């Protein structure tokens, strides 16, 4: 988290700066959401057994910032899908009474959608990455309500992780990134070609 300073190391401005700020805000929201869920379910703070649900190609240093953003955008997209699954399943299975957790859950969903839309504008033209989800909800929920709850925790842990990654990456971007989009696009294409090899 050290890199997630208020204004970024390079003093991002404009759209990239706003995206970075939104990512940082969303990251905090996700932390609070996970905490609210743990408290409401009396779950221990120890992590749930299992890896992250969403997997992406490794963010190696050779990747350009734009490529990293593209990969993280794909991860966040999967996170949003998982979160919407969580909301649907939770509301169907459990009480639909209002709670602070549910209000925060809605906030995270909305802001995650905004962040996706915002990062989409920073993506390289025509370059698409896809993230994978290792375990879907159906397999986990077969073990009962507790399995569903653990899967929700894992989704929320993924949200914390990937929004944090995105926030860090956005804040580490150079300030001049958005000033020369065409140049960046060319450079990004070259980098993307390498990845595909």
């Amino acid at each position: 988290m050290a890199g997630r300073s208020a204004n970024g190391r390079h003093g991002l401005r404009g759209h990239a700066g706003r995206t970075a700020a939104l990512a940082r805000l969303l990251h905090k929201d996700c932390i609070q959401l996970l905490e609210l869920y743990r408290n409401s379910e009396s779950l221990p703070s120890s992590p749930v057994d299992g890896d992250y649900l969403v997997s992406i190609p490794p963010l190696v240093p050779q990747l350009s910032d734009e490529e990293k953003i593209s990969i993280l955008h794909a991860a966040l997209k999967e996170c949003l899908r998982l979160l919407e699954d969580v909301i649907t399943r939770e509301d169907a299975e459990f009480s639909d009474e209002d709670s602070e957790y549910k209000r925060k859950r809605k906030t995270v969903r909305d802001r995650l959608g905004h962040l996706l839309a915002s990062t989409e504008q920073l993506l390289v033209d025509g370059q698409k990455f896809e993230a994978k989800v290792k375990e879907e909800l159906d397999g986990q929920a077969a073990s009962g309500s507790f399995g569903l709850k653990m899967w929700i925790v894992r989704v929320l842990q993924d949200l914390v992780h990937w929004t944090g990654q995105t926030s860090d990456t956005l804040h580490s971007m150079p300030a001049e990134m958005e000033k020369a989009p065409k140049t960046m696009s060319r450079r990004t294409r070259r980098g993307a070609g390498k990845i595909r090899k």
Partner: protein
Amino acid sequence: MQGWVTLALLLSLGVGCSLGQNGVGELPVPRGLTLNPDLPAQTLSLTWQSDSSLFDLEIFHTELMNVVLNETVAVKTDPVTGLHSWTWHSPLPLECTSHSAHIRARNQQSVSQWSPLQTIPGWDIPEKSESNMFPQDKVVPVGSNMTFCCIVKEKEDFKEIMYGRQEMSATRLSRRTYAITATNQPVSGNTGTNVICCSQRLTLTGAVVFVGYPPGDEGLVCETRDLASAECSWKKGRDTGLRMRRSRTKYTLNGRDCLEANERKRWWCSSKAWEQSWTLVARNPLGTVHLMDSAQLTDRVHLLAPVNVTAVEVKAWSATLQWSWSVAAYKKLEMVCQLQLFAHELNSTRNYSGPGLSSVVLESLWPDVDYTVTLYCGSKHGFWKWGDKSAPYRIHTKMDRPDALDVWMWMDSSNTGCVFWKPLSVRKSHGALVGYEVSQSSAEEDGWTPVSLPPGNFSYPIILNNGSDITVAVAARNPAGLSQPSTVTTPAYRADSQLSMSELLSTNGSFVLSWQPNANASSGYAVEWVPTGCSGLCPVDWKKVPESDSSFTLNSDSLVAGVRYTVSVYALSTGAPTLLQRWQGYSQEMTPSQSVRELLPNQSGSDVLLSWKATAMENQRGFIRGYTIYLANAAHLELIANISDPEVQSYRVKGLSLSSYKFVVKAYTSAGEDAGATVAIKMEMDTADMLFVGILVPLGIMFCCLILISICCYKKREWVKKAFYPEIPGPKVPGDWSSPQGPLDVKPSPHSLVHIVESPEWDFTKEGLFPVPEEEEESENDNIEVDADSDEPALLRYYNQVVGDGSHGNQVSDSSGSSNTSVDSTQTEITYAGIQSPTSSQGACGGGGYRPQMQSVIGPAEPQIEFEADFQDDGLHAGYKPQCSWQLDSPEAENFSGSLGSPTSVTSSQFLIPESSEEKPQPSNTWFHNFLSGKS
């Protein structure tokens, strides 16, 4: 020997063993034991074949071979299958660990061999290496006990099992299985109670248990809204605490799913057709409730709200209301309807009935009033309940002409008065008034003279030109028209002074009036009350009383406390009102708001006459019952008089001594005293006394004192003389002064300050007079300075001093100070400004006697220089140089004498008298000297 013993033991053991084997061996071992687990139900069914009917059963936790059941059961053969079957309910989920069972037949004390062990594997076998917890998603009632087990995955440690937030004590069942038992479980939260199994670093697995109650619904009631279908409702009852979708309560009505309730929208179900009886079944995983209801349709009519409510004809005093029904079947229903009318202070409820009621006429409304109407109906026969209320509907009735005004005329003099009328209330104005019309007629003039007044006016002045009565008619006007005129004829003016008014006492703030019935009061009576003494715009009020009454209670609401009212009763007829009686009184007396006026004290000798005037009537606030007079002391008021006659407005305070007094006069009513008026007076003497005391007495005292002083002085003249006019002792000179040895040149010492020291034991024989040596050089200088500063010539001082008295220090200090002030009590410094010289002449010196200095006045500065020079010269000659050596014609002597300026004696007992005419002794001195000397 030993061989025999061993053989015997072996034989006995062999017999024992063969006997035992014979007991068992008689019963065949049960065959074909099979175990059929029901995992959700946590039951294990055992089936076997055997000819016996009594069996011993043992069930183990296989891994640790812990016996969990050891029981003897009687099981008969199932006639269909020919098998024995027995079911065991396990407190532990069967998945938790492997279970093994075996069975043997029993016949009283003989048993068969145990059947081979049959085992059902648990989830803790090595093939299932993951973590698991059982049971999952159980729904149990509140207060139940439950056992959970955690199977730890391979190669993972076990730390704890949490039940909610509570850490539980776990029991190990196998290598990987641990169990807890939750007792008396409380109701779960929204998402159930979590049971979580943790290792040191991870949350391994867990389960959710839903603890709640069976359905608590009650009170099923079915009714119809449209005279065909049914709507059944009930009370939800206790919350089951089960909010999981699959745990929620499911409802069926007469066997049909109740969708409305199952969607948790409302606690009611609908049915398209009315049925005679209704059964609601409420079911959840913990129980089922059956609710019953049965009724005729006509007894359960709950009408819907009337719609399209409108007022078709609105008048001033009535309106016709119409509405319609959304259900056509209502048109034939005998119904009763209730209308609620809401208006400001005009709320009412009215009932109407009829078949398919859809219109009513609202009577007895008030003109120009906003009404809000709400309507609801019910079935008249077999009334069940009022139907839904219609939406509020607003009706505003039309205006009507105002009611007649209540008019009165008040005369404040013989030819002036005022017509008053009371404002009309909303109920009487029947619409907002736009004004009043006042008409007057007199006997001399024909017809009426109308005047229009704006609505804010409630009076009109009347002037009688010829002293004849006039009649005034007043009518109110609103947009609907003019009211009936109210007429009043001027009553005869009767001043208060012309009547003998009685005092009117109030009862609880009200006046209870009664009067003799008057035959002329054909139109009743009028009671009028007005503040006494009021002039101009007075708050005149009145009340008309029917002729049948001869009493009236004037309530405190229309009276002001502390105000004196004049209350009059008039007889009303077709002509002018006739005054019958008049009173004055206070509804509530209060203490006067102001003190008495013009309080004045008037001293007469040792008496003081206090006089005052009563305060104005409007400040009296009650009938003045008297006055109290107080003498104000420092801390309190001392009552000195209480005058109970309010007409007495003076009081004489007698026998006062010469001092200052403060009097307080207070008027009092029945409510108490006022704050009081204060007056102060300082008692003074009369003029003759002042003359006597102020002038003659001091003069007499002074005269007496003078006489006494004179007598005293005369008697003690010797002492006085000694004290104030001592004899100057003669100089005592050593040597023979009788015969002169030559011409004496007596020169006074240049520093000719001589001290005469007086001692109380002054003795002339002693050497008491000596010249004071000029102590030090500083002293000399000081003296010189003093002399130089003074306008006077050099002073000669005589000090009477006791010889040998060590008071030189004082002298030194004295000499440094003012040169002509006395020193202290033991020393008297006398400066003789001019004493008559004794008989002496300038030539006396030649005669060897004392020769006074004869000096002419010369400026003071020069002699001092000379003085110092001489002093130095004199210092060469030890001893005293008599004055005879002083030569009169010496210019030094002349200069010196000039510095002296006043009679001075140096070492002489004689006073030195200058010959200067300016320094002649005063006659008074001479007289006083003679007086002291006893000379005439």
